[in-house]
């Protein structure tokens, strides 16, 4: 019996729906806790301090600090490092990828199909985390920017890590080096290079932390700015480009039963 091959959209939909249950398992809850634990911990500390007699509303700087120093700089990259290997890379390592590749569905659509449930799952918790920060005194005017910044960056970082996982055998290591060396250190390089970081675009959307940073913490000679709309567009476009490249890589690369041919 000959059946017409499924369209790319049908492939993405089928893969996303088929692998959706994976996000409700252990790794998915780790991703969720990476957002919620620091926010919840901050809320607990604030509540305890309040019960012990601290006066007034919480300081906006607390929400800023948790957002920039914890969520953006630490947890968001770790989320991408944890979630991306559960995407198409997982099938490569578990040698279940040939089962997908011998179907008539377009192989290039598989990375996005497998990544979408993780993107949706992470985005839900990031939104909840950002809303939780409001209790700590987050500025309501900055909330939309924070939400867009987190979700946009999550889209881009997850896509980047998926691509890196297909390009390199030790993709997680390269990803960690990018997030924890390049992103913080780029500020000592010429200012335009800041645009090659997620941090820059998140700050363009969510409001710069520069006002909260002391002089000794500021390594860059100057901080460049990007219009929020452009920053969001950059994050979304970068993510889409990474998903497309990951699909192209899978479409072009022979992946045999040993599962190692695609490793860089």
């Amino acid at each position: 019996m000959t059946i017409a091959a499924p369209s790319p959209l049908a492939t993405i939909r089928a893969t996303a729906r088929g692998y959706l249950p994976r996000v409700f398992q252990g790794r998915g809850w780790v991703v969720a806790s990476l957002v919620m634990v620091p926010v919840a911990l901050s809320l607990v500390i604030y509540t305890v301090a309040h019960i012990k007699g601290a006066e007034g509303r919480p300081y906006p700087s607390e929400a800023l600090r948790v957002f920039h120093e914890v969520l953006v700089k630490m947890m968001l990259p770790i989320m991408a490092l944890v979630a991306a290997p559960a995407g198409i890379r997982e099938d490569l390592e578990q040698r279940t990828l040939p089962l997908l590749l011998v179907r008539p569905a377009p192989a290039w659509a598989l990375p996005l199909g497998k990544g979408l449930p993780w993107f949706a799952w992470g985005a839900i918790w990031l939104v909840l985390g950002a809303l939780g920060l409001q209790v700590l005194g987050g500025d309501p005017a900055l909330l939309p920017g924070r939400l867009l910044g987190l979700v946009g960056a999550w889209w881009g970082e997850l896509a980047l890590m998926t691509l890196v996982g297909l390009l390199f055998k030790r993709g997680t290591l390269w990803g960690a080096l990018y997030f924890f060396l390049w992103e913080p250190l780029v500020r000592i390089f010429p200012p335009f290079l800041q645009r090659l970081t997620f941090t820059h675009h998140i700050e363009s959307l969510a409001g710069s932390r520069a006002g909260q940073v002391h002089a000794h913490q500021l390594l860059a000679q100057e901080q460049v700015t990007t219009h929020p709309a452009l920053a969001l567009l950059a994050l979304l476009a970068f993510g889409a480009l990474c998903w497309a490249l990951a699909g192209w890589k899978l479409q072009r690369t022979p992946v045999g039963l040993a599962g190692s041919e695609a490793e860089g």
Partner: protein
Amino acid sequence: MIKLDRASLRYGPILGLSPTTFELPDGGGITGLLGPNGAGKSSLLQLLSGLLPPSGGDVRVFGEAPFRNPAVLARLGMVPEGDRLPMGLRADRWLRMMGELSGLSGDGLKSAVARVLDTVGMADRAHLTFTRMSKGMRQRIRLAQALLHEPDLLILDEPFNGLDPEARLVLMALLRDLATQGTRVLVSSHILGEIAQLTDRILLLFRGRLLAEGTVTEIRQLLDRHPVELRLTGEAQALARWAVEQPELAALRMEDGGVVISVGSPRDLLPRLQKAAAEGAIPLRALDPLDLNLDAVFQYLTKDHA
């Protein structure tokens, strides 16, 4: 249906499959792909199923190159080696996804999933996750995914590995049924007895080379230089006296209750043996060929190429 023209496969500097040429015709039937581990069976199957492109030569399945070719893959079902499945997923939902990736949808998809689950005898356990399934159950599900779109060509790489004897028999019966219904089944194994029970049409691979192709008997005929061992049961002395007079005799071994003879050309000897027994010239009670089976063929051929 399948045509290889000097197709080869390299893994970097390592030759996985030497230039190989063979054809499999359209229509149903089972073909066994035999060879020890590392013979190149999986390499050949990966070429045919479009997982890997050939390093040289040409591979055609249904008249087209199979690598990432939806037109070929829509007519092909593949059960890769091993029992790996995405952990944590439910079998029925995973099969549904695999059906959708094969182009099925709606009621057709629903009925296809129900049909294959019924075919592999997993209808009542399809709600289990793969982590809760035994190896045999997972193997059945892997077979089910390959049958969803009713392929014309079904490729199975070492499907009997890890299955208990009962499950093997069930799988063999299933493959025979599919072949009878018109599906071309290509099944690899390094256990000769399994293939011998399933089919007599084999492709024999060794160290990346296709050594032989045909039925066991045809291949055996290629091996005339290797004597065939026959056990003659009866009064040993008399049988031995008759045997040593035969020009085809290569060796003789006395046993309790008979003799074992090695003969170079059994097709010449057997009619004379039959005649002598019928005339009462020799006290023959039974005749058993000892090595006219796949194991012997395999050992002879691989010994020659080792």
